[in-house]
């Protein structure tokens, strides 16, 4: 189960209008991507503190949510700051290799840090919005912005079914783990393959049953999407 979702329904500003929360998020994003560097870390810390205050989430849990994103962020930053060249003067801690030098680029390091702070600020702001805005408010807001219905429908169905998918994933994963399916690399690769196959098969079976249920509810090819509450 996605515990992250629970906070959206029970936080100190759950009753705020989604438009106001979206505006706050937008201001946060503008600050994250504007050129004045000093503002960004201040905003990052302030928004992170504010999120923890509003949602009553523990710092430990809050940091754990970043684990999923950190590998992507780190890979990007490493790609930016690591360099290879012939001039050791341009590189921090140069390491001689095959007649050249590799290490941290003196030119690119500030750039890498700037990107990291920028991305960190944007992520913290997005978490703030996601953790304080219940899903029906997000749908109401998307409707308010007059996005195409098909896009809102897709968003709505993905949100509904992602929980079922995660639940199925967790059940299969736990069953495999209990039978030592992830004890070493070889088994892990094998079990992951089976997991993917089983999930795919379940999707196919569930799809058929979902079509039956849609028929029973007289589905006409369109999901009604509700506008914002008056």
């Amino acid at each position, binding site marked *: 189960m996605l515990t992250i*979702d629970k906070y959206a329904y029970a936080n100190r500003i759950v009753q705020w209008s989604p438009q106001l929360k979206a505006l706050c998020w937008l201001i946060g994003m503008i600050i994250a991507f504007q050129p004045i560097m000093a503002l960004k870390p201040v905003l990052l810390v302030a928004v992170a503190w504010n999120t923890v205050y509003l949602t009553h989430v523990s710092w430990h849990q809050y940091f754990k949510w970043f684990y999923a994103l950190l590998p992507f962020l780190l890979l990007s930053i490493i790609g930016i700051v690591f360099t290879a060249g012939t001039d050791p003067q341009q590189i921090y801690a140069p390491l001689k290799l095959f007649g050249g030098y590799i290490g941290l680029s003196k030119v690119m390091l500030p750039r890498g840090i700037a990107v990291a702070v920028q991305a960190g600020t944007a992520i913290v702001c997005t978490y703030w919005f996601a953790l304080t805005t219940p*899903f029906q408010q997000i749908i109401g807001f998307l409707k308010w912005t007059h996005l195409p219905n098909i896009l809102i429908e897709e968003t709505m169905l993905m949100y509904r079914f992602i929980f*079922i998918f995660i639940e199925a994933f967790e059940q299969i994963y736990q069953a495999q783990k209990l039978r030592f399916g992830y004890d070493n690399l070889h088994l892990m690769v094998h079990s992951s393959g089976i997991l993917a196959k089983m999930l795919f098969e379940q999707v196919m079976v569930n799809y058929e*049953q979902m079509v039956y*249920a849609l028929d*029973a*509810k007289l589905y006409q090819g369109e999901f009604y999407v509700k506008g914002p509450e008056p």
Partner: protein
Amino acid sequence: MIELQHLNFGYEPQRTILQDISLKLGQPGQNVIGLIGPNGSGKSTLFLNLVGILRPTSGNILVDDQPIDYRKKGLNALRKKIGIVFQNSDQQIFYSIVKDDIAFALHNLKLPQAEIDRRVDQVLTELDIQALANRPIQYLSGGQKKRVAIAGILVLRSEWLLLDEPTSGLDPDGRARMLALIKGLVARGQKIILSSHDMDFMYEIGDYFYLLNAGHIVKEGPKDQVFADAALLKRSQLEQPWLVQLSQRLGLPLYQNSEALFADQQLQQTLRAALAKGE
């Protein structure tokens, strides 16, 4: 009235799932009709035939003396008349908020918003789930999800309600609530056909039963007749309800439900007297 005439059905030509099924549903005094049978006996397949999702290989289904019209318009009319609630609640709840999902079928019918709101409120009250109206589906219990799935079909106000395994996966409290819910629906005139493996549940709620085994109707009749045949139930991999066992094995009167048994003062006095004598 729903009538099945020599209905056969199979997904493949060589392998029939339902064989020569003939029955009349909705005769006087049959408000809750039970369909019992072991796994794979064809209960769910029969349900899917009844709502036109599957089409019989041969034979007819007559609804109010008219054969099912399998064109889109005819099927929509049929599904307004016969609502079906499937076993797995998660696969029939599409919206993330309870009241939005209950309103789904009504939006598909393009009813005016005021009428939709009225019907949704009515069903929420009827099933005693007003408190869940604005709750996200993923945080409901299995029993609550079942009630929401039933509410999503009840709003259609169909004459018939098919319930496929309504108690599967429910804890004792959920099962008791389901029993009360069905009794409430029957009291207000809803015709119900249900399938379940829970024989005690079926005995307590049903009026008339069809026992299905390997695609055939092997017995039909009022509950005291169908459940009296212990050998046939055993051959069909089913068990007798405990109230019937008490009657057949211990010679107690045959009670219609557990409340009737525990309310029998005379039985209590007799038992107390017999126990005292034994001491």
